[in-house]
C-alpha cells in the first residue's frame, strides 16, 4: 500500500511518500501506526503520541479502528490548520 505523510509527520519520518507491505497482523489504522513507529527513530518520533496523528484512507478521514482492507492510499498527518 502507498503511504503519504504531511506537515510535521512528513518532516519527522523524513519522507513524503513510500510503498510498504505490512505483515498480516496489521489490520487497522492504529495497528499500522504502531507498526510504523517501530521502524526507526524518525517514525518513532512521528508516532510518539498516536492520538495526535490523524489518518485518511483513500482520501477520506479515518479513525484508529478503521480497517485497512482494500485501501490503496493511506495518509498520516497532524490535526488540520487550514482556513
Amino acid at each position, binding site marked *: 500500500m502507498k503511504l503519504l505523510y*504531511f506537515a510535521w509527520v512528513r518532516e519527522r519520518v523524513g519522507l513524503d511518500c513510500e510503498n510498504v507491505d505490512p505483515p498480516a497482523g496489521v489490520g487497522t489504522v492504529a495497528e499500522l501506526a504502531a507498526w510504523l513507529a517501530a521502524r526507526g527513530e524518525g517514525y518513532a518520533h512521528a508516532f510518539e503520541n498516536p492520538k495526535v496523528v490523524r489518518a485518511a484512507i483513500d482520501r477520506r478521514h*479515518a479513525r484508529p479502528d478503521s480497517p485497512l482492507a482494500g485501501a490503496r492510499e493511506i495518509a498520516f498527518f497532524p490535526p488540520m490548520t487550514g*482556513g
Partner: protein
Amino acid sequence: MAAPFTVRIQAEDFDAAADAAALTCGRTDIGAVVTFTGLCRADAGHPDGALTALTLEHYPGMAEEEIGRLVEEARQRWPLDGALVVHRFGRIVPGENIVLVVTASVHRGAAFAAAEFLMDWLKTSAPFWKQEERAGTPGRWVEAKDLDDDAAARWAPPARPDAAE
C-alpha cells in the same frame, strides 16, 4: 455562467468580488450572496515576534474532495443556489488572501448559515497545514485550536460514516 457549486485549490490569489459576481451571473433567482474572505494576519503582539509569512501545505486530491463533501453537506442542510470555496496553498504573507467562501440562496438566512458552517468545518477537516515564519525564523507548525473544534461542534457533525470523530 459559472458552475453553481465549485471548489478550487490554488497557489494564485483570487478576486473575491469577481468570483461572487461570476456565481450570480445570469441568475435572477438568487436573493442573497454571502462572501467570506480569510486573510493572513501579522499577529504583531505575539511574544515570538510578528508573523512574516505562512506556508500552507495541503493534501492534493483530498483537499478538493473533502471540501466538496462539506459543500454537499451544506446543500443537504440549506436551500443553496450556489457555493464556491477557494483555498490557497504555498507561501502567503500578511495582508494576502488565504480562503474564500461564497454562498448564494434565495434568502440571507441560508446563505449566512451555510457560509459559517463551511468555514467552521473547513478549518477542522480540510487537509491543510500552516507553517509560520516569525521575524524571519522559519518552521513552526501552527497547532490546531480547541476554539476551532468548538466552532465546528456547534453544528451537528456532517453525516459521514468515516468522520474523524
